[in-house]
């Protein structure tokens, strides 16, 4: 127990990194995922095809492989750099690329399933008053679609919180890797440290669940 108390600043720092990874890649993948969903329902076969290939490739590849590709492939081999001297900043942004690329494929599918729930009449009415495809999507379909999928998007965000631990594969010092280091440093306090980190994840994910459930109910489209 003392080990957890002594190392509390370190533990909180690791969770702060987890939060940063989640928020940044969450925002990026929400935007990119909606763009992908728009591509997949567009009238242009080129865009539909490109969207479908992207989603199917990214969804069926293990996240660890994607992160390793970003960290070692883009980072080391292709020397993609975000900071000249700070290596940890570099791997932070490279893992964000990987997490966003992966998560956006799932966001796309969730949003697309939301679009399917919007009644036919809505799109027909929008067309009848002369809206173009993009206007129909932006003003009529997406606002209703996104509101119906708030709960699944919340579960995605929840999964993303846990998925940020995979960034440990390229040495980002988020919660899981920090926990392993603390295991090495305090061999006698493995169970308290594990429970501490597990509690940290519960603290992060529980409010998220409650909030998304609440939002989903508040914003539900009444039909």
């Amino acid at each position, binding site marked *: 127990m003392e080990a957890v108390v002594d190392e509390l600043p370190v533990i909180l720092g690791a969770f702060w990194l987890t939060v940063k990874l989640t928020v940044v890649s969450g925002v990026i993948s929400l935007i990119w995922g909606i763009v992908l969903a728009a591509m*997949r*329902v567009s*009238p*242009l*076969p*080129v865009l539909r095809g*490109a969207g479908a290939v992207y989603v*199917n*490739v990214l*969804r*069926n*590849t*293990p*996240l*660890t*492989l994607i992160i*390793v*590709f970003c960290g*070692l*492939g883009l980072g*080391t*081999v*292709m020397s993609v750099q975000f900071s000249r001297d700070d290596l940890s900043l570099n791997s932070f942004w490279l893992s964000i690329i990987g997490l966003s690329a992966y*998560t956006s494929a*799932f966001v796309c*599918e*969730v949003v*697309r*399933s939301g*679009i*399917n729930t919007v009644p*036919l009449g809505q*799109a027909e009415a929008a*067309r009848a008053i002369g809206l173009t*495809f993009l206007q*129909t999507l932006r003003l009529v*379909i997406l606002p209703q679609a996104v509101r119906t999928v708030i709960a*699944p998007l919340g*579960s*995605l965000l929840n*999964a993303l919180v*846990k*998925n940020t*631990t*995979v960034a*440990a*594969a390229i040495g980002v010092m988020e*919660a*899981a890797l920090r926990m*392993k280091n603390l*295991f090495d440093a305090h*061999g006698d306090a*493995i*169970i308290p440290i*594990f429970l501490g980190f*597990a509690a940290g*994840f*519960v603290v992060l*994910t*529980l409010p998220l669940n409650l909030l998304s459930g609440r939002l989903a109910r508040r914003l539900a489209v009444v039909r």
Partner: protein
Amino acid sequence: MTERGASVLYDVPGPGARLRNNALTLAFGVVLLLVAYFVWTKFDEKGQWDGKLWQPFLRADTWTELILPGLLNTLVAAAVAAVLALLFGAVFGIARLSDHRWVRIPAAVVVEAFRAVPVLMLIFFAQYGGSLAGLVVTEFAAVVFGLTVYNGSVLAEIVRAGILAVPRGQAEAGSAIGLRKNQVMRLILLPQAVTAMMPAIVSQLVVLLKDTALGFVVAYADLLNAGARVVPANYANLIPSVIVIAAVYIAINLALGYLANWLERRSRRSRKVAADPAAAEAAAGGEVALMR
């Protein structure tokens, strides 16, 4: 979504719209090609399309000596973890439906706790916690432990939802003809629930297979380890190697995905299924469940 569904958002194009669509198709086609060209030249600058980096994959010994053993390890870990997770899921899923509070509540706590913890942390915990208890924990055992308890907890939820989705009358009819509680579960509820749960279970097994790649972090000799450590160590071709390995993963997962779809279509068609497969899948989070 079907082609018909997609057309909900736009009319059958008239002559003007067809012309515009063709122009836009051309424009976006050019943009996509430019993006592809940009990526291609960037990789080309670093010599990643060099024939000698790709040539190892045309030789049989690269596959038989380096890649296939990794694939075998991945499949073994996935298979063992899948069997154990199914057992774990069945036991805890049914325990959560128990009439006895002292069974129901601990089972709920275990399931909810393990679902909240990332798999990677469970793997690390298995390694360090196991050696604390004086056990020799191999990388294989640690990976299987992490995958089993995490996916087992998710499967427990699927099992619970599947059993709850069987119409009440079934259990009542079972009790009415004098079956015991465990007979009702074994003979009436489970057989019907399993058919309904099949698609959700297979989806979760795809997740499990994908997650075996976490073994890479603890140096388990799996497929990703072969592709990102072993092959590049021999031929210094990390990017080509990771791309080839990704193709292998995608092929396996797509095949499993088609299996899940096929099972779902089949169980939807069959009228013998009393429980609604969609209900069981929705309980597991449907599409979302695939992410983890």
